[in-house]
């Protein structure tokens, strides 16, 4: 190791320690940033010689990474990046903080995927989905698909969601592709063919979503991995009843993608699903806890597609707290609230909260959902009728609830 590299890492660790002391986050991102500034090659060096899988996509990165780590840990230690630190700095911190694990599973923020593929030379890349997310900060969805497509041509194995046309178009250039029928509830960002711009034709049956482009012929590839309810069928035809502790059909799809990636490392689906079943929550997501003496379950949703999934996960009849902020990490513009079908909450009790609770209240009013608006996150939970409460929050509002849980 060069002197420059080791100095860079030592300084990075010191900065991470300082960041933790001053209470500005978990420290991982600041540490990585200093390391990268001092040595731009730090990430390349830390990744060299390791067997790496990357996970990217608009929704499900953290959960799928966690599921894949669990599956691969049946074979030994795995380095990974937690705490939402999925930018180059966070990846650098994760890999320089664990120099010995021979394998790494890294979740990557979508726009950075090409750069990280170039830097870390992954063996496999898992591609979940692409939909609108914080459009005031990031490039349009189709532009991300375009830069992905270029970068994925250099990847040995792409494990992709066959139900998302943007993912299929982006991933089909990889040397080897493994397609998983992981599902797509949100189709509004893939109306037009990513290849030629014509209108895609979708035919949905109870079993499958087929799609194709009548102009250029881009079409849903035949998936090697099928998902039907809780049943996942592997390429050899064996079906597995996947029992996750995590809720939601979407997570069965994520588990199938993770199992498909794990199999490229020789982990059997049975072993992979068994390891995944034990995960109760993912960095606070799906966590069952209490707030103000009330039993709550915390669900994170960061964009319309995520909200559709989270609303589907709520247990019928329970009061729902909708907590929304619009800080930089959330996107400053909460107009996506109007893309979310809050009408499904009609007849249920709802509480609007978070820094943009007034936007939520107006949205619920037009959705015909009875609601109250409460500024404070804890008070919002207490405002609901006695009994368990479902809390749905976007990114920084969710972090707010995690602090409430931690600090009591």
């Amino acid at each position, binding site marked *: 190791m060069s002197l420059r590299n080791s100095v860079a890492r030592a300084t990075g660790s010191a900065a991470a320690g300082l960041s933790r002391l001053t209470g500005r986050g978990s420290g991982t991102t600041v540490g990585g940033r200093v390391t990268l500034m001092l040595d731009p090659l730090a990430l390349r060096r830390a990744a060299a010689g390791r067997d790496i899988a990357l996970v990217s996509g608009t929704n499900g990165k953290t959960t799928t990474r966690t599921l894949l780590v669990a599956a691969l840990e049946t074979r030994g230690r795995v380095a990974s990046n937690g705490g939402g630190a999925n930018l180059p700095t966070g990846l650098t911190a994760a890999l320089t903080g664990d120099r010995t694990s021979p394998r790494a599973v890294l979740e990557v923020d979508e726009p950075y995927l090409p750069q990280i593929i170039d830097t870390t030379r992954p063996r496999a890349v898992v591609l979940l989905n692409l939909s609108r997310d914080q*459009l*005031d900060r990031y490039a349009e969805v189709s532009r991300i698909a375009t830069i992905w497509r270029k970068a994925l041509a250099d990847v040995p194995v792409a494990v992709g969601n066959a139900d998302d046309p943007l993912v299929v178009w982006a991933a089909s250039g990889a040397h080897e592709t493994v397609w998983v029928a992981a599902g797509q509830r949100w189709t509004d960002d893939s109306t*037009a063919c990513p290849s030629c711009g014509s*209108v895609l034709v979708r035919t949905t049956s109870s079993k499958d979503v087929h799609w194709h482009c009548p102009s250029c012929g881009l079409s849903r590839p035949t998936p090697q991995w099928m998902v039907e309810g809780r049943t996942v069928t592997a390429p050899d035809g064996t079906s597995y009843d996947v029992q996750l502790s995590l809720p939601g059909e979407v997570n069965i799809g994520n588990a199938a993608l993770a199992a498909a990636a794990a199999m490229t490392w020789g982990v059997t689906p049975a072993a992979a699903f068994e390891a995944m079943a034990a995960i109760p929550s993912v960095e606070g997501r799906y966590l069952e806890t209490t707030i103000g003496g009330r039993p709550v379950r915390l669900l994170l949703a960061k964009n319309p597609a995520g909200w559709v999934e989270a609303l589907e996960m709520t247990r019928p009849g329970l009061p729902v707290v909708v907590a929304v902020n619009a800080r930089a990490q959330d996107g400053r513009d909460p107009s996506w609230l109007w893309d979310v079908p809050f009408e499904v909450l009609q007849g249920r009790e709802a509480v609007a909260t978070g820094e943009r609770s007034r936007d939520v209240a107006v949205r619920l009013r037009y959705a015909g959902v009875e609601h109250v608006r409460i500024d404070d996150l804890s008070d919002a939970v207490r405002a609901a009728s006695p009994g368990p409460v479902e809390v749905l929050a976007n990114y920084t509002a969710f972090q707010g609830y995690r602090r409430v849980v931690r600090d009591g």
Partner: protein
Amino acid sequence: MADALQIALVFPSLLGTYGDGGNASVLAQRLRWRDIDAEVIDIAVDEPLPEQADIYVLGGGEDTAQTLAVSRLSGLASVVQRGAPVFAVCAGFQILGETFLDARGATHPGLGLIDCHTNRLAGSRAVGELLGLPVVDGLDAPLTGYENHGGHTVLGPDAAPLAKVEAGVGNGEGVDGAVQGSVVATYLHGPALARNPALADWILAKVAGPLAPLDDTEEEELRRERFAALRRGRFRKQWRPPARDS
């Protein structure tokens, strides 16, 4: 429901990037709350544009979606000719003009229903809160919303602006939007009509006549909060029109 007022939401899967479909919901709900039957019709991209809807709503969309939408919207000309209100936001505004820029940055002919041309804004995209003072008859309440676009729209003599810009960019000429005949267009989303119930009612009155007032307490609270946020200057410096004479 045969005589329900029909609000056509045009190609929501193409034009609706910023929750703009909410504008159609707001129009319909504000009629229903006044005991006027109303329905929103989602027009899919492979469907023909209905000829006889009462109001047409277009939202924003990505560059590729814009050209696709234009190719399927020739029917909008007869809608405008018979005087049915068309409310268009952001990219929906741009495609109604004479020309706009396509995904490659080339000038693309629009539908020619608004006398305007859209080019690229100099510098970075216009992203942030937009505040305008209406300059059209019968509309007084300040217009609030969020904008996110790279378009610089220059109005010709046949189009009048919707509002004078107090904060934000709008068309990039010190004004926002356009009004021409029955067409009303703006760069405001948020969606615009949820944050501006007076604008919603101003459009509705064109088809439903004089309207009874509604209890808009929650909308007013949201508007006050947004105005206060602008005053705190939390979002960005206020836009200043470029000095023309010097």
